[in-house]
Structures are given as structure tokens and as C-alpha cells.
């Protein structure tokens, strides 16, 4: 368990440019449209954008999803029609169909950004036109600007900046907890913070499109997710100050995260210990079930969501796994400094990707488990390499004490499965074609 802390910060980061096998920020709509229930996400883009969201969310049961794409056509590009007029018409059609929408979010894409379509202006104009009913916001989810979870970052930053336009609610926020987490996780955190006696805690995003409480110099904020660089900057520009902490994954991460809040607000150590004692014990107990499956296992993490440094820290310190490489699409040095400092020496850190070269590195390392995206998972499995597909970390309740065991189980499951399903795993089977 608790190895001495040796910072791996001096290790040179591998920086590579080449093919990136990652999602663009549009993918964030898949969970954001469920989190904020009276918002509608309208992508201004191409058929590719529509196809992406549909493929990624294809198994959803939908009668009427709360997202759509305004697909640009040749007429729009040839300048035969005014794209702003076109967008206005489609938005009017949409609102006619869905009068229940309280917040309309225009989402920029690669094509809309390459042709320099001014989405900010469009959002302002539509907001005026509908008298802020619904409120109209915009953010970029394009692949050229954002990777996967960075879409959420841009959305939350837009929500914060919206205070300047649409004002705030009566309340003043003392603590902002930023980052989308599962409802059950949010409720658990809310209970713990309440027990510490904290008032005026705001979760960002909230479950509806209501205006945020006022954020100002008296506001402290803490990140529940590691991918929120733009959101942090937007909060700081309003005067809010960040509470520095590990991210709340595993018993250790959750305790450190809560402790940072407790210390900031002057919660007595005895009180903190009393509040967290039982859930800490439960988290350790639940995690222990899976340690034998993961102890000593060599794990390689491909870049996906920026959660990788935190996941690696958890794997290494609470499950005794050996980390070979931690890939992240982007490293926010300041936000993940604590996580990186807890990784044992010798762990490779990589930022960005050249997927072919990274696959070569991965094969050469012969890992026991590879954490990677769905474009790589089955091909690795067919080679006999066990994988855990990474998108699940964005779609599963994994933060906090009560989910520590669930998080361990996510990693243990493919290894357990390999042991259960006997037979030839050499990948020597007929291809789909």
C-alpha cells in the first residue's frame, strides 16, 4: 500500500504529434443532455457530427432526444443563403416542436469553426429574439479545439461566463463544486459537505438550467473532474479562488479532496474524522475485494479523458498495480500536479499521441491490462491483450467513498473475465469480414 512518496515530476513527458485516436468534445453532449434536463444541445456542423453523436449514443432509447444537429449544406457554404438566417429558421422550428426547452446551447464544430461562423453572435442574436426564453448559450465542442471531456469544460465555462449576460440568482456561492458527476455521487458529496456545516454549496452543472448563484471574490471552488482548465479560468476571472486537491477517486483521493475543502472552511479535524470515518472504512473494505486481482498487474493507459493521471494514482496506490505508461490528451500541469507527484518513479507520462507509435510501445511492454478507447479495444483483445475500455469512466459513478469498490471492479472485471472464459485467446479467430 502506502509506498513512500516519490515524485515522478522530473520524468520527462513524452510529447507526440501524430494520429490521435480520441473523441471530439461533441461527445460530451451524450451525458450533458441528461444532466441538465431542460437544456437542448444544438450542434452547428456537418453530417459527420450528426453521425458521431448518433453512433456514440446509438443504443439510447429515445423518443425525442434533447440534442440535434443543424447540418450545413452546400448552399450555406456557397454563400447562396445567409447562414444566420438559416440557423434562426431551424431554431424557430425546433422551439416550436419543443416549447419546454429552457436553455438552448449552440455547439460549435470543426466545420463551423473552419468557416469562421460566428456562433457567439448567433447566440446573442437568438437570445435577444426570444427574450431569453429560452436562454441561448454557446460553446465549442469541435475536434480541432477539444478532446472528449473538454467539451464539458467549455460548456461549464460558458455557464460561468453567462453570469455577465443573464445575471445570477439571489444566492452567493461560497463553494462551487465543478464537474459533472453522477447524481448519486453529487448527493453523497452534498451530504458530507452538509455534515461539515458548509452552506451555499453549488454543483456545476446543476440539474436544471436555472441561473447560477453569484460567483465572486468570496467564492471558493474545487474541481471534481481533472479536465476543467477553461472552467477554472472562467471562475477565477470572476474572482473565485481554487482549492487545490487530488481528485476524488478512491478512498485516498476522496479523503484528500474533502480534507482540502474542510481545511479551507475551517472544519475541525476531529469533526472531519468523525464524519469520514465510516465511509472511509467502507471504501477500503470494498476496494480490498479486488486488490488480489490487480496487485502487481502491469497497466498501460492510453489518452482519452484526462482522468488518466488520477486513475493511475488510484491503481498504483490503492490496488498495488504497476503502471507502465499514463497517456493523457492534455496535461493541466497545475491541476494534476498532486496526482503526478504520487506516481512511483519510472512511470512514463505521455501527452498527446501518435497512436501507431504508442501501440508499438504498448505491445513491447506486454501489459496485463490496457485502458483504451473502443477503436483499439477489440483489436487488442484479438491479439490476446486484455483491455478496459475507457469511455466507461465518464459514464459510471466512480467518484467518492461509496463508489471506490465499483471503480476497482471496473478494472478487475476484464481480468476476472479472462480467467473465467477459458479457451484460445490468441486472437486466432475468423475476422468479421
Amino acid at each position, binding site marked *: 500500500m502506502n509506498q513512500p512518496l516519490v515524485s515522478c515530476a522530473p520524468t520527462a513527458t513524452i510529447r507526440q504529434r*501524430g494520429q490521435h485516436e*480520441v473523441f471530439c468534445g461533441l461527445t460530451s453532449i451524450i451525458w450533458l443532455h441528461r444532466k441538465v434536463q431542460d437544456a437542448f444541445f444544438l450542434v452547428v456542423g456537418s453530417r*459527420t457530427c*450528426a*453521425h458521431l453523436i448518433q453512433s456514440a449514443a446509438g443504443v439510447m*432509447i429515445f423518443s425525442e432526444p434533447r440534442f440535434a444537429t443543424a447540418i450545413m449544406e452546400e448552399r450555406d457554404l456557397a454563400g447562396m443563403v445567409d447562414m444566420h438566417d438559416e440557423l434562426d429558421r431551424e431554431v424557430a422550428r425546433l422551439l416550436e416542436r419543443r416549447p419546454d426547452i429552457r436553455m438552448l446551447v449552440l455547439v460549435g464544430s470543426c466545420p463551423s469553426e473552419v468557416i469562421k461562423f460566428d456562433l457567439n453572435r448567433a447566440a446573442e442574436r437568438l437570445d435577444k429574439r426570444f427574450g431569453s426564453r429560452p436562454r441561448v448559450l454557446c460553446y465549442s465542442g469541435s475536434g*480541432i479545439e477539444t*478532446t472528449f471531456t473538454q467539451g464539458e469544460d467549455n460548456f461549464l465555462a460558458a455557464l460561468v461566463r453567462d453570469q455577465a449576460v443573464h445575471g445570477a440568482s439571489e444566492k452567493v456561492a461560497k463553494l462551487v463544486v465543478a464537474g459533472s458527476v453522477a447524481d448519486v455521487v453529487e448527493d453523497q458529496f452534498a451530504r458530507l459537505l452538509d455534515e461539515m456545516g458548509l452552506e451555499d454549496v453549488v454543483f456545476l452543472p446543476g440539474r436544471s438550467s436555472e441561473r447560477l448563484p453569484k460567483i465572486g471574490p468570496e467564492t471558493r471552488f474545487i474541481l471534481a473532474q481533472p479536465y476543467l482548465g477553461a472552467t477554472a479560468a472562467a471562475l477565477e476571472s470572476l474572482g473565485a479562488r481554487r482549492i487545490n486537491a487530488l481528485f476524488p477517486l478512491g478512498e485516498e483521493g476522496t479523503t484528500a479532496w474533502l480534507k482540502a475543502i474542510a481545511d479551507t472552511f475551517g472544519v475541525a479535524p476531529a469533526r472531519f474524522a468523525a464524519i469520514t470515518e465510516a465511509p472511509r472504512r467502507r471504501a477500503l473494505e470494498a476496494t480490498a475485494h479486488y486488490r488480489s486481482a490487480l496487485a502487481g498487474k502491469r497497466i498501460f493507459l492510453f489518452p482519452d479523458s484526462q482522468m488518466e493521471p488520477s486513475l493511475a494514482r488510484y491503481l498504483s496506490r490503492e490496488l498495488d498495480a504497476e503502471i507502465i505508461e499514463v497517456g493523457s490528451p492534455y496535461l493541466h500541469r497545475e491541476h494534476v500536479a498532486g496526482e503526478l507527484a504520487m506516481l512511483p518513479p519510472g512511470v512514463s507520462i505521455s501527452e498527446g499521441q501518435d497512436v501507431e507509435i504508442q501501440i508499438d510501445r504498448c505491445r513491447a511492454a506486454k501489459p496485463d491490462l490496457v485502458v483504451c478507447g473502443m477503436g483499439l479495444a477489440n483489436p487488442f483483445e484479438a491479439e490476446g491483450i486484455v483491455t478496459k475500455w475507457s469511455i466507461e469512466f465518464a459514464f459510471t459513478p466512480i467518484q467518492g467513498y461509496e463508489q471506490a469498490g465499483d471503480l476497482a471492479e471496473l478494472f478487475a472485471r476484464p481480468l476476472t473475465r479472462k480467467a473465467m472464459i477459458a479457451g484460445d485467446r490468441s486472437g486466432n479467430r475468423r*475476422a468479421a469480414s
Partner: protein
Amino acid sequence: MKLTMWTYEGPPHVGAMRIAASMKGVHYVLHAPQGDTYADLLFTMIERRPSRPPVTYTTFQARDLAGSTADVFKNACRDAVERFQPDALLVGASCTAELLQDDPAGLAKTLDVAIPVVPLELPSYQKKENWGAAETFYRLVRTFTGGRERPADIAPNSCNILGPSALGFRNRDDVTEISRLLAANGIDVRVVAPLGATVEDLARLPEAAFNIVLYPEIGDSAARYLKKTFGMPIVSTIPIGVGATRAFLAEVRALAGLPNDELVGEAEDRATWYARSVDSNYLTNKRVFVFGDATHAIAAARIASRELGFKVCGLGTYMREFAREVREAAEEFGIEALISDDHLDVEQAIIDARPELVLGTQMERHIAKRLRVPCAVISSPVHVQDFPARYSPQMGFEGANVIFDSWVHPLMMGLEEHLLQMFRDDFEFNDGATASHLHETHAAVPAPAAPVEVAAPAAAAVVEGPVGWTAEAETELKKIPFFVRGKARRNTELFAAGKGIQPITVETLYDAKAHFAR
């Protein structure tokens, strides 16, 4: 701009990818922004391929736009050729790269790679996935048959199969089934393409006597080119359904110069007897709405009508390129074809047609679920459950067997249908419950409105002016089984409006019933 919540087809470069992924030794370098690699999941997850599709993406980002994205593209080409050593390289742009105008075709010419490079011009803002696949396949065929001579002595029974591809609906098993059937009937299949073919195989295409196009959406343009250039006849009957399979075999055998007195393989046809057997009686004139790609939709409508005795009450396709063929087919059933790629139009057409069964795509599955109408999938776009592990062709005699089972399965079974008409108030078995051979997917709700009565506001415009119902008539209407109740309501309202009857009484309901008969 066009508001789209669901798209029946992906962009054309996804079609190009399907061709590259179908073939061996073909690599595709796609100029595309970061994130467009999502398309890999179509192959690795939906089709469950055990290998990555042979596609290299440039995945440029915003910071690259300031520099030379053209250099990024050229380097990606060189690296791909060096790493994968393909026999041919496809180069093209995705929708965003199309806006940059880096001209992949021109750039690829300056690469000096030692293999053929086939540039693709796929207009992303006009065309879609199937067109992209057809165009890519045509370009490849043109490139690799170019300058070839047609041999002087060609065996008359030799043919190629064109059209099957990766991510095609049941293509894997269709090819197996049809190849087997052709071999049994004395036909020699030389090349199957693009699925499983190499560029060397493409070069051998002119060496066969004729071409069989199983999937016109993808194989048509290549087949037409081969006909024009080498005079190769095309077999265009699609062997989906028993009748179509017989016609197909007859056509092929005639082309091959073989006698047509016996067709091999008919012994495997169980669908014909199943449809004739008495428990299929109740299928007669069940109203069915058909939608999909043109090939599968037309084939399905004919099977439904001629082989299963359903009544086709709607037929349509999302492929404008094949609108003419679908319109002609719709005339056979005395209906007007629906040509639209807007799922809201399709939903409205289904509501208006009030079918008892929907045969469609993944999207119609969603729509039918919402309207609580039974549904079976007959065409792309499909999801992971329609790439099954078991042998599941749609074509040939075994395909017809598969179709019989999968289309009849969602319908309520005959005896239960009878009992529902006899006894309406059973606490377990009633209108609100799912057919009892299908497990309940949601908590039973107290007798909800019949599926087709969940009509959008626009559907009310069917009748001129609102026609009221007396309470007794409404109650009487509820005694009609739910799967035909919507039709009965509509017919009664039409009848009443035509006769100027207001309000509708129990009498009117039965007058209308006598007037229309089922």
C-alpha cells in the same frame, strides 16, 4: 441548414472507409480533424472486427491550421505506406478537410510512393455514405481494370459478385449463402468484391463472363462501368425472398447457358410451407409499413405481399438515388412511395398508415417502440444486435427462412389474438400488455391508448373538420383489438366526414365497418 436528430446515412467518407475496410491490402489516408476517428468504432464495436480498419487519419487540430495542413497530410501518407505496406492507397478528405482545400489528390501525386494512389472526390455537403462507398468502389475498379484485356475464351458459367461490404446488413452470410447456391447450380464464382478482395482480384474482374450485383447501392456504378468497358452483362435480380431467389437462379443459369428445368437448393426452402400452413392464416392482410435502403425495402415489400400475404400499406426509402425504383415498386401495391431522409416524415407516414407491423431500420425500431407497433429490422442503418453471431442471411432460401422467423416473431400469436377479441377485460392479458411470448419490457400501464392513437397533432388533419364521437361509440371502438383499432377509427371518421354524419354513433361505426370490410 437542415435540422437533423437522426441521420440514416453517415457522410460519404464513411462509405469510402467501408470499402477500404472490406478489402485486403488497401489503405485509406483521410484528411480529417481530431475526433473523426470515432468511425473506427463502427467497425470495431458494431461489426466487432478484431482488427483496426485500415485508415490513417491526419487528425489536425486548430494549431495546425496556422501552419501547413498539406504537409501534415503528406507525412501521414508516407508514414502509412511505410508502416502498412499496402498494395494501393486511397486518399481523400472528410467534411472539415474539404473546407481547407488542401487537395489530397494533387498532393498525393507529389508523394512518389511506389504504389497506385487512388484519389477520392467525395462532396460531403451533397452526398452521403452509400454514394461514397459506390464512388470509391467504382474508382478502385476503374483504376485496377484499366488497360486490361478481356480474355478471348471465357467460361460462360463464370461470374463475379459485386457489392457486399463491411458494415453491410447481413452481407457476411448473404455472400456465403449465395456463393454456395451458385456453386450448387453449376456457377463458378471468380471474384467477390469489395468484401475480402485484393486489388489483384479487382484486376481479374474482366475475366468472368458476367457480374452479379447483390447490393446495387454499392455495386451498381462499378458494374455499369464493367458493362460499358468490357461488355459484361449484369444480373440485377436481388435474391431476397423465395420467388426472387428462384428468378435470380433462373436468370443466372440462363446467362451461363445452363438448362432451367431444375434449380438446386429449393429443398432448403421451408418458408413457403410455413407461410402456407394453417397457423399462418391469421397473417393474411396484416398491414405492414416498409422502409429502408431501396434494395431491402423493395424486396421486403414483395415478400410481405406475395409470400406472406401481408398488405403493404407503406413503402419508402431514404435513398434519393433509388427513388425511381422504389416509386415503381410502390405502384404494384397501389400506394405512393415515401422518399425522405427525414425521420420525422417517416414517423408521420407510419402514424398515417396505421400499420400492424413495421419493417424498417434501427430508426423505425425507435419509432415503432414509441407507437407500440411490432417491428423487425430489414435494412441498414442497424446496430450491434443486427450483426449477430449466428448464421443469418437475408438472401437465398435460408435467407427466406430467417426472414419468416424474424418478421412473424414480433406479431402477437394467433390464439392470443383470438382470445383478446373474445375477452377484453383480463387482468393479465389485455391491450396494455405486450404479446405474452415477448417479455414485458416496462411495467404494465393501465390500458394505455392504442399505439396508433398516439398521433401527433398533425395526424388529426386527416379528416376534414373535427368529427365528434359519442361516449357509447368511443366505448364500442375500444372493443376492437388494439392492432386494428387505429385503422377502424380512421375509416369511421373518413366515412362519417364523407356522409356528413355528426356525431359518430355506434351505428356509424358498424356502417363504416360494413362499408370498408377488412
